[in-house]
């Protein structure tokens, strides 16, 4: 089966004043459907840049990026916006909900940009909100919710378009550890339901939820390994 993400020799060079910054120096990675991947690395390693490229927020300087068998390396702004809308669900560290809109509207937003009609849109948004366990909070504003609930709304917003990948950038970074565990449990569930999840994190215990860890250092893949514990554990659960 074709990989859902295929990165080939990706580089990214920034111009910082007179200086050139090589954020990515040839990254080659393939991610299959329904994988649960953690991208790890210290700050300045290039992991954020890699996430931006995978999330189609940024285009690589060179190299090939195929998302769902579509070459997105050379797309323009508007084409990328469409791809992000259809294929990618973002979950950010700081939730990034629209403060003035209620939960329902926040979750509806990607569907509005996707051109989904009002009735269908509301139904899909309600379903997604129910999936993250906030079915009774449809008309709350973000500031009326706890941090964990806000992140659940963000997850619902990411899920609502049924994207190819869920891309979570330090999703527990702004949460206390108990709430963080709840959110990670939610990701685990979503993975079991067949979603492809990419976590960007520097925390080992968060990365431990993933089945595969990709370590980035100095703009290159330093390490790409399966999380044995995790796969074995899941295997045993499946066997039992």
């Amino acid at each position, binding site marked *: 089966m074709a990989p859902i993400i295929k990165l080939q020799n990706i580089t990214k060079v920034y111009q910082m004043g007179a200086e050139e910054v090589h954020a990515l120096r040839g990254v080659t990675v393939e991610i299959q459907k329904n994988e649960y991947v953690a991208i790890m690395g210290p700050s300045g390693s290039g992991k954020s840049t890699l996430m*931006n490229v995978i*999330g189609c*927020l*940024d285009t690589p300087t060179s190299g090939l990026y195929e998302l769902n068998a579509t070459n997105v390396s050379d797309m323009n*702004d*508007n084409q990328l*916006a*469409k791809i*992000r*809308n*259809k294929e990618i669900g*973002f979950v*950010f560290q700081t939730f*990034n*909900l*629209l403060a*003035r*809109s209620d939960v329902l509207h926040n979750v509806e*937003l*990607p569907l*509005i*940009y*996707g*051109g989904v*009609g*009002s009735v269908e849109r509301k139904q899909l948004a309600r379903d997604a909100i129910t999936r993250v366990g906030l079915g009774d909070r449809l008309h709350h504003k973000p500031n009326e919710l706890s941090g964990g609930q806000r992140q659940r709304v963000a997850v619902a*917003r990411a899920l609502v*378009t049924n994207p190819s990948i869920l891309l979570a950038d330090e999703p527990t970074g702004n949460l206390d550890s108990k709430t963080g565990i709840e959110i990670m449990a939610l990701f685990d569930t979503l993975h079991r339901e067949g979603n492809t999840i990419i976590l960007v994190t520097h925390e080992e215990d968060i990365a431990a939820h993933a089945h595969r860890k990709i370590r980035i250092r100095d703009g290159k893949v330093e390490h790409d390994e399966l999380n044995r514990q995790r796969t074995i554990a899941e295997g045993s659960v499946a066997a039992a």
Partner: protein
Amino acid sequence: MSSTLRFYLDEIREGLAISFRAIASNKMRSALTTLGIIIGIVSVTLMGTAIEGLNRAFNKSIAALGSDVLYVQKWPWGGGQDWWTIRNRRDIRIEQAKAIERQSELASSVSPIIGTIANMHYNRRVLENGVVVGTGAEFLQTSAVNIAYGRFFTEGEADGGRPVCVIGTDISENLFPNENPLGKVIKVGTNAFRVIGVLEKQGNFLGMQSLDDRVYVPINRFFKEFISFRGGIDIWVKASSRENMDETKEEIRGIMRKARHLAPAQADDFAINQQDMLIQTFNAIGSVIAAVGLLITGLALFVGGIGIMNIMFVSVTERTREIGVRKAIGAPRRTILLQFLLESAALCLLGGIIGVIIAFPLSLIIDQVLPTAMPISVVAVALLVSIFVGVVSGLLPAYRASRLDPVEALRYE
């Protein structure tokens, strides 16, 4: 097709909802910014209303001049020629009016007109500085005025120079507040005239000169009684129809030239004026007044627009992160552009509506001085202009917002 239409409608609805939330959540700032637009719209609409008032006043006055009447005079309307040359022209004489009456085939009625200032007396009542007009029996046909009651003098009375007069409403109101003036004898200057008719109210001419403080007497009587007054007459000629005004004018010109013994090479030493000339002159002056007035008041609107642009830049900067989020979840550039344009247009439209609401009672005050009403077209234009100002002012900030790099925008604190 219908799904794309629905998509755009959804996008506009979403944009409007965002705009109103943004405006409502920054009430003070929105109010202050909108103030510029409000002031601009108030001044533009009031200027429009005043111009409308000027036009109305002019049209009302111009109605006193018949559109099918030619005015044979020494002075041309609208000017243009050398003042001294015209000053030195020979006066127009009553004989020339008689010549037109006799010879013209296209004229339906002809009135010689001459006037002077005199005080009017009845018993102990006085009206100072009224106007005495000497004219012929066809005066009513050549002017746009009607008899209110009584009658105008007959041809017999006119030719015979009988001491009879027809008075304007100002005179009847001043000299006969509680009496029927018909049959009474008034003194015009030192001469006695019997009142045989009262004219309908006419109002002012171009807002300056009252047409109702006049006494009309037979011109032959006028020449007898007001001998101290020297000067030529005017001749008012009503054409038989509006369609052959030009032919009538040519005919009158020929008769006048002959009556004044002009050689073929000599230029006309008289003018044949008509309503159109005043309209043209007024239109020329009126459009300059309108242009200058709207330009000056438009400046207020322009300044208001700059205020809107400024606040839209602030709004874009403040919401950089929000723009980043929207882009991340798939908003194309067009959507972001539309969102801020709508916000800016909504802000200005709000200002426009408030401006019109404020301007309306003020226009009623103008109405006291210069009869007018705020034209619905001015209201419509004011609202369209405010939307236009909003779109233009919002264009640059909205464009900047739409071009934001999502990565940068998401990182913005």
